[in-house]
């Protein structure tokens, strides 16, 4: 690939912003599975497979699945974050395959937060 210029950086930034912020990426919801060592040890890979299986079975087109690192609260892993377009993201903790399926169905598909498993909504403040 050719060398990046500052214009390329800005272009990538815009492209990713629009796709990950769910505006123009064609996605309505985004599920982030937190896959640091702690999350993986607690079973995050199973969550990932469970979500991918649901998507395949339901032929869901508008839910994006991605991974990220440790969310900080290692004792409550595995964790996942669900973000619906235009709403603050919601973090879920102490998950398993059953719970993530429920969350997928109720939150990602139907837009209703599964309060029982939810830890918090919104984002952390960064400076």
């Amino acid at each position: 690939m050719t060398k990046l210029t500052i214009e390329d950086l800005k272009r990538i930034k815009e492209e990713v912003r629009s796709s990950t912020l769910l505006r123009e990426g064609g996605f309505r919801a985004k599920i982030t599975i937190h896959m640091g060592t702690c999350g993986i040890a607690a079973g995050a890979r199973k969550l990932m497979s469970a979500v991918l299986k649901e998507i395949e079975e339901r032929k869901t087109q508008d839910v994006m699945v991605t991974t990220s690192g440790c969310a900080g609260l290692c004792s409550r892993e595995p964790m996942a974050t669900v973000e619906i377009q235009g709403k603050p993201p919601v973090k879920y903790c102490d998950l398993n395959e059953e719970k993530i399926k429920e969350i997928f169905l109720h939150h990602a598909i139907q837009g209703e937060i599964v309060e029982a498993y939810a830890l918090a909504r919104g984002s952390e403040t960064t400076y």
Partner: protein
Amino acid sequence: MVCAGTGCVACGSLQLRERLAAELEKRGLCDEVQLVITGCNGFCAEGPIVVVYPEGIFYKKLTPEDVPFLVEEHFLKGRPVEKFLYTVPSAKEKVPLMKDIPFFQHQVLRALRNRGLIDAENINEYIARDGYSALHKVLSSMKPEEVIEEVKLSGLRGRGGAGFPTGKKWEEGRRYTSFPKYVICNGDEGDPGAFMDRSVLEADPHAVLEGMAICGYATDSHQGYVYVRAEYPLAIQRLNIAIEQAKSYGLLGKDIFGSGFDFEIGIYPGAGAFVCGESTALMYSLEGKRGMPRIKPPRSTEAGLWGQPTVLNNVETFANVPSILLNGSSWFASMGTSGSKGTKVFALTGAVQNVGLIEVPMGTTLRKIVFDIGGGISDKREYKAVQIGGPSGACLPAFLLDTEVDFDSLDDAGAMMGSGGLVVMNDLTCMVDTARFFTDFSVDESCGKCVPCRIGMKVMLNILHRIIRGEGTIEDIDHLKQLGKHIKESSHCGLGKSAPNPVLSTIRYFREEYEAHIIDKRCPSLVCVDLIKFQVVPEKCKMCGLCKKACPSEAIAWEKKTTAVIDLEKCIRCRSCIQACKFWAIE
């Protein structure tokens, strides 16, 4: 407004009204609060319903018993009572905001600014969070000297533990003009209970790479290495992916951003020796030699890797660099204490509710970290100490909980910042045994090059073993202190110089526990098995049977309403019963 529709009346709203009237009278609130009976509110399923105006707060399913609490909280203190509030089944009100949860509330994310937000294996997501724009800014508009000046002004100090001013180190690195020069990132994180570097590398590897490239530009170096423990396979994998992606974008390699600046980064997995976290030992290990520290000077900035000028910084230090250059030194220095700027990442583990990775402003008190962020001690136990700084650090007791975490105040308390391991200990932790644990660790990990560390620490360990067995003498305490002092003064490297700290700090703050082991032949926390009789104290036994359930060797006889008895023939002295007993009834 108390609903008095048929539905609510059937659920008891009239009794509720009476109780409310009586309570408001009792509190002297009759003039301020008007009690109104309304017709059917329409939401009979959740009755009795009470709506409070002017806010329109909607309470459901109230009973007369709820009234005193409601009146006190809402009308006297002005706080709506969450648990009685009505929420739409799918509404989010019940799920708190991140900023309202203490664990997240008190954290300030700088080094971890991308945690949980980006896919570490996708460079585009890093770029979307302003990634590599600091490198572009530096390469296109700043001289190396200006970069160094900016880092110096920010007050950034090395996050690996010693707290050496980063800008000063870079300045030194630039001053020597023997080429090639090297930049090394130290990711050989070895403290028990520490996982800061691993998390940063796993969550945001590009931040570290960008920080290293900026350092390379500032110090006129074109080759960087990340020395990372082989025990961190995921971190290594993500670093590899990150380096490949950065190269394919031309953000590493030749002529970055067309500026003429070249910078390459390689990864070196370390075999896991604790001593290789020491900078000079690390460089020998990287050269393929045995990892042993050498005497300084010369400092690594003059003669480091392969005898060439080398700047070595910790993972977290590099992760802080891009945002300093992007936002300016005064932004960075606006947070923290006079001597320690910015934030510090800690791995909070041990006997706290919330175990995890946290980042707090320098100057945050230990109390805030343990009790607000950590959520306090788990399992309803009591706080005893917090171990900070790993095998080089110290155990700080309750009266030092208001110590602010920064490099200098921790030094004053006989501890050190260390790389950021924070292990919280409860009342079931014996401080002599804790000192024994860390001394054991240091003996295992001593490289053996210098006598004070190799022999001295072993002697300290033997004395501790003696005390733990109940064979210690009162002179041992002074002997330990004296030995510790000599080892600190005469060891070659930082590890030896700090290895006696766990023993010295526990003697300083928990001397009575040493004395209990030596004089009374008793371990107050019931940890040292040679000093435990494994007998049930009848006066303390509440006959609950928890000890019997916990015992793996069926050594405990207990029936309902009888005191438990331990059969010492069958007892394997595993302490399961002691941990299960809530009443300290086993001695």
